[in-house]
């Protein structure tokens, strides 16, 4: 089979049978002798001072093995990627969101653990919750972190007040350009918080042996989880092993470090293995990874002919009670607001703002869908103002090969324009629109994430291959597809490879299942290791075939002389030879591609996303039908055209694209977290947080455009996991605006919001729905309640 055919062939992933038959063991399925059960005491209130915390009664209960608070762990603050070191394992003096961990217990049974939690006495003094990012920015607003000025932080950030981070993307002088622009439109778009909702909730089991602990965790990033556990518990990293059995989904919600530290500390205190499994409600409120609520203010200047001249924008990201990785995502959001468009002058500011809500973070393409939803609706509004149709407007302004990005990086390839043309062509192919039907389009871009990563490849004595990798499989199939890359190098079949993965003791470092980076980086490592094995095989074959290495090739499981296919020796025979001498072993890592050349000298808050490495370009075109009486929008078809550089594994790419589109449609129309005025989530259940079901999925047509990146992943590939979720909501929004004759500027575009827009013209951007409540009155009340010292 040719390499190209192998990449396109249907392929059965190695973990497929175990998962489909129920044999696959997930973290909560693992059995341990003497296992104890953990439970967390969560604050249950948005903002309060802890006046008294007494665990005496809980500790005295029979069957309770350990009760921990911040007094029982090292006194140190930590923060995601060391951006802002603003949190501790347990709350000690103050709780800042309802899911904050106040204490943890381990007991012989889950029931005893629950009883122990109930026996912990906590006296709170409630403080007014800060729920609105704009209120949080007011001078005189109470502070979520009164001691913020003492926090350590990344040198590129200057956390102060309720602002955890500020990043700008600046080129030219947008103020001057806007003043001269003949057409200027200002708009506001507001997105509510959403959730990643993996089917498997966060689960951690810790098991000590001497001074070493093995942590079985449902994490997407085992190495990051190991590093943070070591840091917060002050244990050397090499004494911690993080193992993921099978992961039941993540969508970014299991990136970063969550409960590994709590459970490891509990297990050490209890002197037994201890397991924590979050309930579904806990899964909604406690992990610090939700999709950002955002307020986007846009101002764009146009020439009369529709050429975009300049853009100013401000993005407020609600980072919740702790900064997590939001400051980085703010910079990404600013790049997304610029988009893959030719704009001479840009001035975009992103603020990460603290509130008393569940902390946000890196959910699949963080900030991308909301930013794209805002700016691509804005583009349709701009187009209409100058009398252009949405496609013509994009055709005029999207970047082409060689065009300059928002920080003057040079774009490669015509992926942006090609995906637009292909998507529009295919969505139009279904013929005339029926009553209340409309088509909407949206374009965008997303970065690839170069980073360090390693893999070992070896040939076993029977001639089969084994990949040992630190990469993490979270269900996408990215790790399962690594054999395709190794097999192509070695002239073998993918199914001849076994994979050892997601265990920090065995695999070399990898950044984990995040940032669409597994194939991009670990694929590079596997290819490099496989090439080394190939060299070793050819050297052995040169001896066996009495030929020069330069004349040999690997194909169909053999080393053969080029042009004389009968002069060959099987890889299995070579493996036998090797196993009586020097073994066939190799390592790969490779040098991560560098960021494209750019000029970010005018930007502040630079955290690594002032250019987009090997960006993926895409356009989604959707056909919808609006029920104008109810506001219910049915998405009939989505054409998703994506320039992924190179398709390495078609079935895997299709899986990512299909799942991304369905997830995006839920974000677009039915999901969204509803908060009460008390700062607590009101729909933290799967009945009221409405994910779409398979029955709701539209027809999805995938188009892969291939403009290989010169500085990309294997074979010029670019990231594929996150891009499919980015533009769908935007395309649906633009279709709704056409079908309804009115625009919805609030995400999600729920049936009630669409109905309200249709019946009253209210676009939802000023809707009173905590956290974006009635501003002036709330500020006044909060300031008055906080008193003169702003605490």
């Amino acid at each position: 089979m040719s390499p190209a055919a192998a990449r396109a062939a249907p392929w059965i992933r190695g973990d497929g049978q175990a998962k489909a038959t129920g044999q696959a063991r997930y973290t909560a399925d693992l059995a341990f002798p003497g296992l104890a059960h953990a439970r967390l005491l969560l604050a249950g209130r948005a903002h309060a001072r802890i006046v008294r915390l007494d665990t005496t009664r809980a500790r005295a209960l029979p069957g309770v093995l350990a009760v921990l608070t911040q007094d029982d762990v090292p006194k140190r603050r930590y923060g995601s990627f060391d951006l802002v070191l603003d949190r501790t394992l347990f709350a000690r003096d103050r709780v800042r969101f309802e899911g904050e961990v106040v204490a943890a217990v381990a007991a012989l049974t889950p029931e005893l653990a629950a009883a122990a939690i109930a026996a912990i006495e906590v006296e709170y003094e409630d403080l007014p919750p800060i729920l609105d990012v704009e209120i949080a920015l007011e001078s005189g607003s109470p502070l979520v972190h009164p001691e913020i000025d003492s926090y350590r932080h990344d040198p590129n950030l200057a956390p102060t007040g309720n602002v955890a981070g500020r990043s700008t993307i600046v080129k030219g002088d947008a103020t001057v350009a806007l003043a001269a622009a003949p057409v200027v439109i200002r708009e506001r778009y507001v997105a509510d918080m959403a959730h990643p909702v993996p089917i498997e909730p966060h689960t951690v089991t810790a098991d000590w042996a001497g001074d070493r602990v093995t942590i079985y965790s449902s994490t997407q990033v085992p190495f990051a989880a190991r590093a943070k556990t070591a840091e917060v518990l002050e244990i050397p990293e090499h004494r911690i092993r993080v193992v993921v059995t099978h992961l039941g989904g993540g969508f970014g919600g299991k990136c970063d470090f969550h409960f590994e530290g709590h459970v490891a500390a509990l297990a050490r205190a209890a002197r037994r293995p201890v397991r924590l499994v979050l309930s579904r409600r806990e899964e909604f409120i406690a992990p610090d990874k939700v999709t950002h609520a955002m307020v986007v203010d846009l101002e764009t200047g146009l020439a009369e002919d529709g050429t975009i001249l300049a853009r100013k924008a401000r993005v407020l990201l609600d980072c919740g009670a702790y900064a997590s990785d939001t400051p980085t995502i703010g910079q990404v959001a600013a790049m997304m607001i610029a988009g893959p468009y030719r704009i001479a002058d840009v001035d975009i500011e992103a603020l990460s703002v603290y509130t008393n809500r569940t902390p946000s973070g890196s959910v699949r393409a963080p900030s991308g869908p909301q930013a794209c939803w805002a700016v691509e609706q804005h583009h349709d509004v701009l187009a209409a103002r100058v009398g252009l149709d949405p496609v013509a407007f994009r055709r005029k302004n999207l970047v082409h090969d060689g065009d300059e990005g928002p920080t003057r990086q040079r774009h490669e390839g015509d992926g942006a324009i090609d995906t637009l043309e292909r998507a529009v062509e295919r969505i139009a192919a279904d013929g005339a629109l029926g009553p209340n039907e409309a088509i909407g389009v949206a374009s965008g871009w997303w970065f690839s994430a170069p980073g360090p990563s390693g893999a070992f490849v070896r040939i076993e004595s029977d001639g089969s291959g084994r990949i040992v990798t630190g990469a993490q499989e979270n269900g996408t199939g990215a790790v399962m597809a690594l054999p395709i890359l190794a097999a192509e190098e070695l002239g073998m079949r993918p199914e001849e490879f076994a994979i050892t993965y997601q265990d920090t003791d065995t695999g070399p470092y990898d950044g984990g299942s995040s940032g669409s980076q597994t194939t991009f980086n670990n694929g590079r490592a596997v290819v490099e290791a496989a090439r080394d094995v190939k060299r070793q095989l050819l050297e052995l074959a040169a001896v066996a075939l009495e030929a020069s290495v330069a004349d040999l090739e690997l194909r169909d499981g053999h080393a053969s002389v080029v042009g004389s296919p009968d002069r060959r020796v099987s890889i299995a025979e070579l493996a036998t030879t090797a196993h009586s001498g020097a073994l066939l072993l190799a390592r790969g890592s490779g040098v991560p591609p560098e960021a494209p050349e750019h000029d970010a000298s005018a930007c502040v808050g630079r955290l690594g996303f002032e250019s987009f490495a090997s960006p993926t370009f895409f356009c989604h075109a959707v056909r919808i039908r609006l029920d104008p009486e109810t506001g219910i929008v049915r998405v009939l078809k989505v054409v998703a055209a994506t320039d992924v550089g190179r398709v390495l594994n078609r079935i895997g790419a299709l899986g990512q694209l299909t799942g991304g589109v369905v997830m995006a449609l839920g974000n677009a129309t039915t999901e969204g977290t509803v908060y009460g005025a008390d700062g607590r989530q009101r729909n933290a259940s799967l009945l009221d947080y409405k994910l779409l079901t398979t029955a709701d999925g539209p027809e999805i047509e995938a188009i892969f455009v291939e403009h290989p990146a010169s500085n990309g992943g294997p074979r010029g590939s670019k990231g594929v996991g996150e891009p499919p979720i980015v533009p769908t909501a935007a395309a649906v929004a633009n279709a709704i605006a056409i079908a309804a004759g009115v625009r919805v500027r609030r995400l999600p575009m729920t049936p009630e919001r669409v109905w309200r827009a249709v019946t009253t013209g209210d676009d939802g951007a000023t809707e009173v729905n905590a956290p974006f409540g009635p501003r002036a009155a709330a500020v006044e009340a909060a300031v008055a309640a906080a008193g003169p010292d702003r605490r």
Partner: protein
Amino acid sequence: MTERFAAPTTLSEALGILAADRAARPIAGGTDLVVAARQGRKPLPESIVAIHRIAELDHQGVVDGALVVGGLTSHAWLAGSPDVSAGWTALADAASIVGSPATRSTGTIGGNLMNASPAAETTAPLVVLGGVVTLRAAGAGSRMLPVASLATGPGQTATTPAELLTTVTVPPTAPGSGSAYIRLEYRRAMEIAIVGAAALVTLDGDGRIAAARVALTSVAPTIVRAPEAEAALVGTAANAATFRAAGQAAAAAARPIDDVRASADYRRAMLVVVVARALAAATARARGESIPIPASRWAHGQEV
């Protein structure tokens, strides 16, 4: 925590336990009880009587023109029965959209009624169709109660703890009748009614409305009839204008609430829509037109 559990195989045994143990609560499919407990909304009862093995409660048939089914009859059976689809179509509409395939094969009509949720799917159809439940208690014989009188509030019924719902009986509809149940749904499965409406329409020889019944889901503490809407319909031509007027009459009399699923304003406005659509579907069926089951998707303009 549940401390006592019994799984009797005869009705008399089950009634004996319910009479002797005041804390005992019956469980059939468990699709409400277990889910509520797992969500932390309501703990499992101290004493459980699992009735799923009682063959006497698992029967289905048409007797003297009436639909007579045991309390253990599943939503899946109701959705798949040609008899129910032909004669009591609104009930088939409702049963076919309850939860998911798993909910429909496990959940029972008895459980759905006794759970007394204001959002229950099967209740509004049974109210307009004149359904009656049979309740039995040890030593007290049996009594019959209209479905319309069964629920007294969310999770509350007019029964005693010793009583078990054994049978649901639904009389035949008059000639020239059609019925439908319409739910406002944001997604196609695993959904709970934002609002819903069941309608039973009987046409006279001239095609005018001779009689109509309308019941509403999720707009009051219990599922309620809408007498204003019914009165507005009688004697009128069956057309979009009269359906809408009836919907407005129903909405004017309804007292919906604001909650996390929808505002009261939206519910009231949607009530007009679902009542009008339920009447349209029921009338079309009364005329002998074929409206697919479930009517919700047809009525909301979605492909089935």
